[in-house]
């Protein structure tokens, strides 16, 4: 009457038949990772390049030309001359340009006189997605420009240069694709697992399972196995695409990353099971899985919005989410090459949520069966 791998195997095999014969499950399991990689890897590029810049240079001096040069040679801006400040304004208002650089006639004279030269930047504030990166470029350009201009006048002994560590080209794909693993797993693990037990309740086959000597633990493990397998395949797929199609470096240790994946997968499967057990209904389970699994892993894991800049409440709230910790493990494994002890906090938190979630799911399942 004790635990039996034969029964676990039987449940897993049966579950695999369902997966294989259900086009929806197959689509979610196989096509979805592919689509996500294409969308996030190819179509969405978080780097803003070629921002159209209307330039009104009323100074026409060496210093002003040098400033404009710095902007244009950065590759982030595409400059276009306009005759006066008013038309620069018009260009931004009409949408012809995203930004405008206005240099007053006294620019060089102020610099030479030892005062700070002032130039004005106009930005289209409606388009928030442009403003943020442009502002960060401005900081850089400003630093470069002031050093260049200073060099032109007083020959300052220092030269300011910015170097980005771990991702020297600030390639957003390097950042996005490792994080994509988190999002894909949220869908595969939570979503698909959430449907499995609910399906048994819905079509009455739970009664069949219960009328045999099968143990609740055997059902849980057996049901989780095929989806864990699909999750592992999806991770391997994203890993290969990341490394070889997008050239994302993997600086860390594969086993550290694999351990993180395994913990995260089990945690999310347990969450899916818990949803399935609590709802007993596929339609409701699907919605709860969507809200509790996919939304946090997309929005609160640091995948899209940086956690550091979240309001205090959410900053603390994300600590409850396994996705946040796995996001750290995935990104640091890929880009920084962190080892296990450097990721200790993340692993501890992830391990803890894994243990809690699994215990909850097993307990809930055992209880509903009695």
């Amino acid at each position: 009457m004790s635990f039996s791998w034969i029964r676990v195997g039987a449940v897993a095999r049966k579950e695999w038949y369902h997966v294989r014969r259900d086009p929806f499950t197959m689509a979610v399991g196989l096509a979805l990772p592919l689509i996500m990689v294409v969308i996030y890897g190819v179509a969405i590029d978080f780097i803003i390049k070629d921002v159209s810049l209307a330039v009104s240079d009323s100074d026409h001096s060496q210093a002003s030309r040098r400033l404009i040069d710095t902007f244009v040679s950065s590759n982030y801006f595409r400059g276009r001359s306009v005759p006066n400040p008013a038309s620069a304004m018009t260009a931004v208002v009409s949408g012809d340009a995203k930004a405008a650089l206005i240099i007053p006639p006294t620019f060089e004279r102020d610099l030479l006189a030892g005062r700070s030269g002032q130039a004005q930047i106009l930005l289209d504030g409606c388009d928030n997605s442009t403003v943020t990166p442009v502002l960060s470029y401005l900081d850089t350009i400003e630093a470069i420009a002031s050093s260049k201009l200073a060099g032109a006048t007083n020959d300052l002994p220092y030269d300011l240069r910015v170097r980005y560590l771990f991702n020297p080209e600030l390639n957003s794909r390097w950042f996005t694709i490792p994080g994509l693993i988190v999002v894909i797993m949220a869908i595969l693990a939570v979503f698909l697992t959430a449907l499995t037990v609910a399906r048994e309740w819905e079509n009455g086959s739970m009664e069949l399972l219960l009328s045999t000597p099968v143990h609740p633990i055997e059902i849980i493990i057996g049901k989780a196995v095929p989806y864990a397998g699909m999750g592992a395949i999806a991770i391997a797929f994203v890993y290969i695409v990341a490394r070889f199609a997008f050239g994302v470096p993997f600086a860390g240790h594969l086993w550290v990353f694999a351990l993180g994946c395994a913990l995260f997968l089990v945690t999310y499967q347990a969450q899916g099971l818990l949803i399935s057990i609590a709802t007993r209904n596929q339609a409701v389970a699907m919605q709860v899985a969507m809200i509790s699994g996919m939304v946090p892993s997309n929005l609160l894991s640091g995948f899209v919005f940086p956690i550091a800049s979240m309001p205090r409440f959410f900053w603390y709230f994300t600590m409850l989410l396994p996705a946040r910790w796995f996001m750290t493990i995935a990104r640091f494994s890929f880009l920084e090459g962190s080892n296990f002890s450097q990721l200790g906090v993340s692993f501890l938190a992830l391990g803890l949520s894994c243990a809690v979630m699994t215990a909850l799911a097993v307990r809930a399942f055992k209880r509903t069966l009695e």
Partner: protein
Amino acid sequence: MEDEVVVEAKQLLVRYGDFTAVDHISFAVRRGEIYGFLGANGAGKTTTIRVLCGLLPPTSGDVRVAGIGYRQDEAPLKAVARPPWGMRISAGGYERVERTIKTKVGYMSQKFTLYNDLTVGENLDFIASLHKMAPAVYRRRRQELLEFISFKKNLGDMVGELSGGIKQQVSLAAAMLHDPEIVFLDEPTAGVTPAGRLRFWKLIRRLAENGKTVFVTTHYMDEAEQCGRIALMRDGRLIAEDSPAGLKKLIFPEPVFEFDPIKPLSFSELKSFETHEAFSFFQPYGHRFHAAAANAEVWARRAPDLRTIFSIRPIAPSLEDVFIRAIEGRR
């Protein structure tokens, strides 16, 4: 062996919160019996079966199934072994008892429980593995059962593509796979064609002839007639238990007649008969009526009048009459 009690419940009580689903019922079923459970929906039939199959721990009461017994006092859960019904159970609690019971009984639930997206063979393989049957034993048993239900389709056919009647037969085979002594069938013929129902009941009778005990619920009275004994349940209580003939006598101690209207009746005439003083029971039965005489004196006085409207002959009440009177409490 013949008179051996294989299923017994004493003062079985099941409560869900404040709701009492099964209210202190007691009964005993002997080996080889076809024992019918009749009652309206929600009367507690399925709950009782679930307790007997080890799917649901009772709130309190004594249950013994296939030699395995457990008693539930107020608290806590504990298995007991009683010598007359043998099989000693070490203190392992309900879970242990429940598991042992599941190896000894077969259960076919009200809902169709096989997987539609699996083939017949895959479904049977799955259930055999859950029972940890040895491959050779399983193959032989499967062959026997498929012959028993005269299965003519392929093992590779999807269950979802079978007809309702064949699905139920395959379900029965699945429930019998581990060769249980007792099989619980909860409305096994719901949604099955009349021909399919006949075939299914032939199987039930053959099971009983082979010494299996069949515990069955149904809403079809022609099926209930085929049971050895019937228990009538109403609101969680067992209100009567006897053979079909015995039940008819028990529920209808007074003479029962069939009334065949000589000419069609109007609706108001019909209404007046339902409350007529001569009858203690008056119900339509096809285009005829079944009625029970209230008492001999009134009957003798009113019968001549009635004979001008109906041709009347004495009959035995049908089980349907029994059901209507006992379960639905109508006159």
